[in-house]
């Protein structure tokens, strides 16, 4: 079996595990396609954690979790048919252009992602990838007792083996079902998962264009802008994340997943479908790497805060309970692996933080070390200020989330990474030299996504608002059943600047 076929088999296995839960929660949307393998990767990560916690083979747990997910979907459809796929699908009528734009956007993004993976023609296996990310899958296929030894034995020296398991577990599933245990298969699996996260984040921009198009008279303008911005963002992201996009590193996956989570959870109009997409992407980010874990925790809090809004804080029980329960469940899933690493005394699970003697010097070094990779902020910040001052009415009218949410998400991720560097015990110079490019991927990409969303919003300011007839023609029936606009009154309540 060739590596290409084995990769397809591995991705199909992950996609099969994630398909039904994604369809049930996200609905039959174009962005559900890349989310299915990512949800399968989350299942693989949970399977690895469960295997280590309770014993049993990784593949058995993976199949069990997939079956459990599918069973839960069927049970939900039986108990609450009103929440089923048919009810969740937006019934768009009278706007063929919207449907064509959705399909065209998907095709353009897929082609752009495939083209961006051309670096795979060079069979590079990155240093950390060979030492950790595509080496550790073999451990997940060992016996439970041996897996414990692998994670604890001090003479294996690498402390990073306590990092979250999503990448290695996904590769382990592919190794197991294909019988091919090569680093190359690991790299191609990780690269395709990267592309899925990239596609999901880009399709959020296409979706933004479709949402905006509903509110303006010349719908094709924001539709085309959304597609163009999404395609450009894919190429920009590939350039920002290479060579790590195609050499097996974890940084592109968590960064792209976090960017997608911000797009769906904090930038797009909040509805059940986008919130579900955000949950999947948050879990991918948090289960991929320690930096992703810290960022994911922050994103869980921000998305919950946005969902609760001022209405929830004022005591609207239905606005308070569901987001908080969901957030607690997400945090529990994210925390399972790191807590387990502490419990088994895994190598590298103890804190590496220390009260540095020279915080000022380290802070200065971090600022200078990270700055060259964050030049996008010099563009995004003034653009956002200008847009926020003049176009906030347009942004509110087209129901795109307040820009401050995205900036909060960017800031928390950046502060988390910078804090780890400033307070860490490692020599700051070599640390920055070897990691600055990778650990700034998330804030840099988030900056570009902010720019892309502003491009879509801004073209709405050039077009006259749609009349009531145009708006009504798009989504018919019960808005809640259609899955759109369910809680739009509180979209920006927390920040409140738009209202």
């Amino acid at each position, binding site marked *: 079996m060739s590596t290409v076929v084995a990769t397809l088999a591995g991705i199909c296995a992950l996609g099969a595990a994630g398909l039904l839960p994604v369809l049930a929660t996200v609905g039959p949307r174009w962005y559900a396609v890349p989310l299915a393998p990512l949800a399968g990767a989350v299942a693989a990560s949970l399977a690895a954690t469960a295997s280590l916690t309770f014993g049993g083979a990784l593949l058995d747990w993976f199949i069990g979790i997939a079956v459990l997910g599918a069973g839960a979907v069927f049970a939900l459809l039986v108990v609450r048919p009103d929440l089923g796929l048919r009810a969740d699908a937006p019934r768009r009528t009278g706007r063929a252009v919207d449907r064509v734009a959705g399909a065209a956007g998907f095709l353009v993004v897929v082609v752009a992602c495939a083209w*961006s993976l*051309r*670096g795979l*023609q*060079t*069979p*590079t*296996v*990155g*240093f*950390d990838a*060979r*030492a950790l990310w*595509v*080496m*550790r*899958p*073999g*451990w997940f296929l060992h016996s439970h007792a*041996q897996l414990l*030894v692998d994670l*604890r*034995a001090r*003479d*294996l*020296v*690498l402390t990073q083996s306590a990092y979250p398991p999503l990448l290695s577990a996904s590769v382990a599933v592919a190794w197991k079902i294909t019988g091919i*245990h090569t*680093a190359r298969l690991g790299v191609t699996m990780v690269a395709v998962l990267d592309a899925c996260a990239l596609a999901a984040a880009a399709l959020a921009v296409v979706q933004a264009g479709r949402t905006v198009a509903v509110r303006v008279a010349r719908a094709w303008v924001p539709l085309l*802008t959304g597609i163009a*911005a999404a395609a*450009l963002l894919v*190429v*920009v*992201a*590939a*350039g*920002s994340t*290479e*060579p*790590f996009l*195609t*050499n097996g590193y974890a940084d592109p996956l968590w960064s792209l997943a976090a960017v997608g989570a911000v797009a769906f959870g904090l930038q797009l109009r909040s509805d059940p479908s986008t919130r579900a997409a955000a949950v999947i992407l948050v879990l991918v980010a948090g289960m991929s790497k320690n930096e992703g874990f810290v960022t994911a925790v922050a994103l869980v809090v921000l998305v919950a805060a946005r969902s609760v809004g001022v209405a929830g804080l004022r005591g609207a029980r239905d606005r308070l309970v569901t987001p908080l329960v969901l957030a607690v469940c997400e945090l529990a899933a994210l925390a399972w692996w790191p807590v387990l690493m502490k419990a088994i005394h895994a190598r590298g699970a103890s804190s590496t933080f220390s009260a540095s003697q020279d915080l000022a010097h380290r802070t200065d070094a971090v600022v200078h070390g990270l700055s060259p990779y964050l030049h*996008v902020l010099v*563009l995004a910040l003034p*653009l956002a200020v*200008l*847009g926020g001052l*003049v*176009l906030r009415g*347009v942004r509110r009218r087209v129901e795109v989330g307040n820009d401050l949410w995205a900036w909060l998400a960017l800031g928390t991720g950046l502060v988390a990474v910078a804090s780890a560097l400033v307070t860490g015990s490692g020599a700051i110079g070599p640390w920055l030299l*070897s990691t600055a490019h990778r650990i700034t991927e998330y804030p840099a990409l988030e900056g*570009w996504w902010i*720019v*892309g969303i*502003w*491009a879509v919003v*801004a073209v709405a*300011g*050039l077009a006259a608002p749609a009349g009531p007839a145009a708006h009504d023609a798009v989504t018919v029936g019960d808005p809640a059943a259609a899955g759109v606009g369910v809680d739009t009154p509180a979209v920006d309540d927390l920040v409140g600047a738009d209202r």
Partner: protein
Amino acid sequence: MLVPVVSALVAGIALVALGGQAVRGARTVDVQLAPHAVHDAAVDDAFYACIGTQAHSLVRPGQAVTLGGTDLADVVTMIKGFGSWVTVADPPSGADVTLTLHDGTAGPGTCRGTTVVATTRSPDGRTVVRVGSGAQVSGQGPPPAPPL
């Protein structure tokens, strides 16, 4: 009047900036396809495949192994070469085989001058040293370091 002007300005700047950065991004990806990158990747793959094959020639399935030597770089090289499949012993004293790397042995039968060496203790208490076989890569020294 202000909104259309600012809208045009924001949309124009954003799309032009995205286009410009996309051109840069495409060039960055193309660098991965340069002949030297392909060559370095091939040497790197061959080196670690060679290390893995030599280790396979020294360790039977199920044998507990410890990674010997004091050179951190050698330990990392062993982890990269065969860390995924080897059965690590904990504590190390319980190992059946101690694997180490011998560097700088130029000549045939080596992985760019490096060989995997197994040290075992026979039933009569003698120390047995065996050298890995089954693969070789010409050249000298570790493969070019991939980007960190």
